[in-house]
């Protein structure tokens, strides 16, 4: 791919925009050209906001020329997962149920990105109601993986990850209840950050499961993730779970050395039944972090085998509760897989739901014990490579399993505990597909997670903006 401006990460574009060396309109034109070029092949967008984006780019250009530069996101082309309400712009949640919904408000995270001066290029494709991991959508067709369009991009923020990876935008806003930021980030070779539960307001995001939903960015670099997080994080009176805990200076803190930092490598669960190439590249990444000065420490985290059951009871019950009105009025507008999940949510026991919520406290305690021995915990993001579109079986080392089971497995502990976790690219396998390394930290310690991720990124070649991505 010939180097184009929109392929650069935000932290490289921002100074050029501030110094007026490039124009937001120029950048927007590149993004929209790539969107039109790639949409037939990758289907990364449900709605392309060309008119709105051009208007925003023109306004950004005018403001910057007048010296009213808002910050590193001013004039930057950004996409938003179609889960988030956008004022005056169709918001479908990847569904037929909401196909015609045009909100009269912005989600809080969207409003914050507008305040930061973003240029919205479109609403990205997603798995129906975020209730899946492949982005194979019965209503809008499948989204596709930019590295191999015959394969899924992962989900449920698959359109967002694919759009960032293929430089249709500089960054995207996604959501994560069972890995829906980190899975597509790993599959598409970009950075995907699930912050601590409550770090970013969920107001205006169509819920999958209120107590599991997290909002976060997908970007080309760690610094970009820090920039996006700084823009969207913080308290919100409209979201009772949004914390008013002060925000660190993520961009500054991430540059600190990791010398002496302890990397927790779990003895159980996270390295079981993993594709050998994923195992090899993740192990190499851990060694790379040790070369950068970190110390490897083995940690024990018990009771992880209950995570799947806990996730099932919580997600199914909460999702069905949200969808009750729609299930009554328009049940046949749901795709079959989502419909089955929603129907099943009625027949699971309340006592199992409450037990699962109680078991989350135990899981937090177990992780916090591990965090006494290590500042972060590292693992693969996924145990298997993405399947072809339409296929549902994957090979996770010695285990043939359903893609949903595989893609949830290493992600859901951090949705259940609420702890921050990031997926960063750590190489390409022999198939040419990206592999993701997951780094997780203590509650509200995104700064350390970003610091470790940045140390890896700075010391290696596995950086999406340096890839020669197929066009």
């Amino acid at each position: 791919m010939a180097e184009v401006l929109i392929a650069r990460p935000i932290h490289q574009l921002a100074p050029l925009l501030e110094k007026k060396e490039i124009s937001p309109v120029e950048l927007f034109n590149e993004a929209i050209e790539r969107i039109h070029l790639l949409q037939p092949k990758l289907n990364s967008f449900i709605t392309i906001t060309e008119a709105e984006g051009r208007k925003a780019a023109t306004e950004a250009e005018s403001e910057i020329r007048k010296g009213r530069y808002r910050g590193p996101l001013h004039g930057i082309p950004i996409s938003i997962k179609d889960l988030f309400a956008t004022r005056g712009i169709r918001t479908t949640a990847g569904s037929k149920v909401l196909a015609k919904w045009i909100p009269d408000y912005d989600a809080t995270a969207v409003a914050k990105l507008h305040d930061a001066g973003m240029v919205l290029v479109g609403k990205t494709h997603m798995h129906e109601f975020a209730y899946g991991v492949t982005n194979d959508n019965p209503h809008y067709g499948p989204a596709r993986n930019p590295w191999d369009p015959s394969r899924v991009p992962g989900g449920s923020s698959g359109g967002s990850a694919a759009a960032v990876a293929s430089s249709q935008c500089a960054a995207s806003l996604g959501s994560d209840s069972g890995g829906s930021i980190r899975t597509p980030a790993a599959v598409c070779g970009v950075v995907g950050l699930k912050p601590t539960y409550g770090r970013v307001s969920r107001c205006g995001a169509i819920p999958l499961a209120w107590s599991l939903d997290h909002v976060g960015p997908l970007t080309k670099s760690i610094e970009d993730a820090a920039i996006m997080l700084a823009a969207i994080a913080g308290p919100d009176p409209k979201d009772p779970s949004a914390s008013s805990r002060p925000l660190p200076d993520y961009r500054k803190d991430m540059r600190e050395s990791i010398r002496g930092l302890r990397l927790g490598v779990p003895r159980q669960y996270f390295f079981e039944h993993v594709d050998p190439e994923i195992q090899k590249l993740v192990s190499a990444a851990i060694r790379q972090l040790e070369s950068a000065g970190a110390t490897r420490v083995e940690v024990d985290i018990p009771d992880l085998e209950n995570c799947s059951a806990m996730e099932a009871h919580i997600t199914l019950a909460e999702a069905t509760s949200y969808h009750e009105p729609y299930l009554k009025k328009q049940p046949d507008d749901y795709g079959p897989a989502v419909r089955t999940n929603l129907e099943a949510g009625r027949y699971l026991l309340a006592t199992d739901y409450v037990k699962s919520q109680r078991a989350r406290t135990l899981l937090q305690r177990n992780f916090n014990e591990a965090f006494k021995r290590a500042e972060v915990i590292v693992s693969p993001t996924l145990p298997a490579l993405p399947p072809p579109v339409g296929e549902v079986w994957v090979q996770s080392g010695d285990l043939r399993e359903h893609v949903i089971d595989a893609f949830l497995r290493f992600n859901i502990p951090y949705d259940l505990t609420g702890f921050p976790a990031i997926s960063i690219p750590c190489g390409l396998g022999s198939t040419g597909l990206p592999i993701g390394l997951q780094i997780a930290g203590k509650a509200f310690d995104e700064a350390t997670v970003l610091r470790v991720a940045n140390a890896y990124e700075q010391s290696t070649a596995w950086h999406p903006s340096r890839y020669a991505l197929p066009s």
Partner: protein
Amino acid sequence: MPTSVPIRLLTRRTWVQRSGTGIAALLLAPPLIAQEQPLEATIRSMSTVTGRELSDPWLQPTAGLVGTIVAYSQPLRALDLGSIEPATYFEAD
């Protein structure tokens, strides 16, 4: 589906989920059939509790999914949590 490949109960859950109708899943997963027929009857009889009738083609896959989730929830059900309360993720600021 090859029956010689070990498939965890968990994957049966998601397989049934994916199939939509679930008929093929039920035919190829004999251990589940005996479990799911009483479940279908149970789910049908719960209409007075849920306020909603569930009939084909949704009854079978729903019963299959519920049955599978219940089956792999046994370790969770056996977990002794003492007096542990449900988690909250934010402190009163």
